[in-house]
């Protein structure tokens, strides 16, 4: 690069060429997409379902971001950054999809009109309106627990997204098709760490086994469909989570066994909780940080 060109680029702050080392542009997630809802699909159900998937991604991205500047290696800073960016991208698409079908809950009472739907939903809903699950909400713990949670969350989400590629909602199907590639990498990244930690040193094995013990109970509310999911699954739009349970159990069992970790008993199912808006204090705390600044300046544009 010629020296003068870079200085010129500096002075010309308005053109938006250039690029990130990692990742791409970040503007309007659904720009140019036909968001018409196909016949026979209830928009309220579709929006509610998008919130479930979108909130999981947003909350997990926030958890992973807590590792940035604290990760074990620079390579891991970059990897966690990538995964966080992928999940944020999924969250933005899904929340924008929910907004496009008019599902905004109480968020619009607080957010001004200039705030896009994705941000109204992310920043101006209270915890009881969130549809994320305990698996993504739980605090990170150490690096072993973080990777075990990521392994479980990515495995569940990949199984769901793989099926959603055939959804009758073309927007959801497209989001899923893009997400499958990303989630395959997330699951692989987490699985490699679980192998290294489980079969590494005595300490890492112990920590990984503790991580399993902390994460397994969080699987209890994931595999029973809510009424929304049941209706949408019947309409060919959503995935019935009960249908992915065996696949998830097989994958997790395989990874744990290869990592020389013992596989605990599958937790007894509790029925949906987070999907119905029931959350522990961890989510409220997480949202306080995430939403604080945006709520302090509801008329601001960023």
């Amino acid at each position, binding site marked *: 690069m010629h020296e003068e060109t870079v200085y010129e*680029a500096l002075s010309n702050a308005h053109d938006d060429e250039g690029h990130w080392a990692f990742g791409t542009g970040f503007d309007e997630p659904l720009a140019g997409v036909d968001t018409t809802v196909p016949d026979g699909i209830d928009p309220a159900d579709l929006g509610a379902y998008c919130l479930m998937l979108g909130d999981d991604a947003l909350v997990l991205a926030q958890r992973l*971001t807590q590792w940035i500047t604290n990760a074990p*290696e*620079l390579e891991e800073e970059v990897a966690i950054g990538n995964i966080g960016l992928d999940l944020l991208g999924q969250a933005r698409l899904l929340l924008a999809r929910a907004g496009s079908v008019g599902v905004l809950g109480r968020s619009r009472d607080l957010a001004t009109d200039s705030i896009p739907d994705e941000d109204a939903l992310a920043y101006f809903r209270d915890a009881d309106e969130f549809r994320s699950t305990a698996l993504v909400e739980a605090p990170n713990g150490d690096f072993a627990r973080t990777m075990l949670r990521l392994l479980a969350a990515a495995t569940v989400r990949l199984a769901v997204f793989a099926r959603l590629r055939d959804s009758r909602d073309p927007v959801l199907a497209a989001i899923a098709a893009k997400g499958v590639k990303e989630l395959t990498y997330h699951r692989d990244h987490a699985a490699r760490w679980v192998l*290294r930690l489980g079969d590494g040193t005595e300490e*890492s094995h112990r920590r990984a086994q503790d991580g399993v013990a902390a994460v397994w109970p969080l699987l209890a509310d994931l595999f029973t469909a809510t009424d929304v999911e049941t209706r949408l699954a019947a309409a060919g739009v959503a995935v019935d989570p009960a249908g992915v349970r065996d696949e998830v159990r097989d994958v997790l069992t395989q990874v744990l066994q290869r990592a020389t970790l013992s596989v605990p008993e599958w937790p007894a199912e509790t029925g949906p909780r987070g999907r119905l808006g029931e959350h522990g204090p961890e989510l409220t705390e997480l949202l306080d940080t995430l939403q604080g*600044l*945006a709520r302090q300046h509801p008329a601001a*544009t*960023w």
Partner: protein
Amino acid sequence: MSAPTLERPAPDEAALLEQFDATLAADHRIEPRDWMPEGYRKTLIRQVAQHAHSEIIGMQPEGDWLLAAPSLRRKSVLLAKVQDEAGHGMYLYSAAETLGADRADLTDKLVEQKQKYSSIFNYPTLSYADVGVIGWLVDGAAICNQVPLCRSSYGPYARAMIRICKEESFHQRQGYELLMTMMRGTDEQRAMVQDAVDRWWWPTLMMFGPPDEHSPNTAQSMAWGIKRHTNDELRQKFVDMSVPQAEVLGVTFPDPELEFDPETGHYRFGKLDWEEFKRVVGGQGPMNAIRLARRRAARDDNAWVTEAATAYARKHEGAVA
């Protein structure tokens, strides 16, 4: 006791030095396998490591806003930027490794305060406008410092700098774009931007280092082709570039002496507080202890992870995890 060596006559150092000087004189690059004077190697390791450390410590001030970024787009942009900085740190540590340094050892030196990083990262980020001002001014100053290094006489460093400068100039424009957006927002937002500019302007000017008459290593580094312009030249270039950008943005710099001098074609500016510079470089800045403590904790609290990865690799040598 000397290790068994290939039977080869000891090369004549004078001849090697002559060849090295000729390479520099022709403006060609020195590559890792080339002979180089020990002083050149040591100075470069210090320079590249200090730059790498700055990228990694530089993740923290903005990283502090990652969890609270006020829109999902801004959160993504900021996460990508902080991630780029980790990437830059990686390229730079690799460049230092081609000179015989070791990344873990350099990290230890950083944490033990035996090597420095840019003093700018010892200031706190008090509002979200700071994220924009760091992009605009701090990254802008960094690019002014770094663009000439794309012509560094040391090949691996020069090549790393080309890539880093491209990405940094994108960060700079992103920062400026955030500030433009905030200036179009509410009165409170405009006040946040001006306040951030007021706090960062002088520390940013200090990023170019002490005035030329107090920069003892400049002459040697310029002779070696690892520094291309003096500190004061670069500082002036930065001021000249920034004033028109501030006008477009609608903010002022906190310097009553800032004024265009039609005779020189440059902006005159006030005196920098070099006592503050010395204090901050010497470890007494507002955030020095916090920045280093976090870097130390990332190393120490996760040492078991690295040990596990090493143990696993030993057990499964040749196997792909």
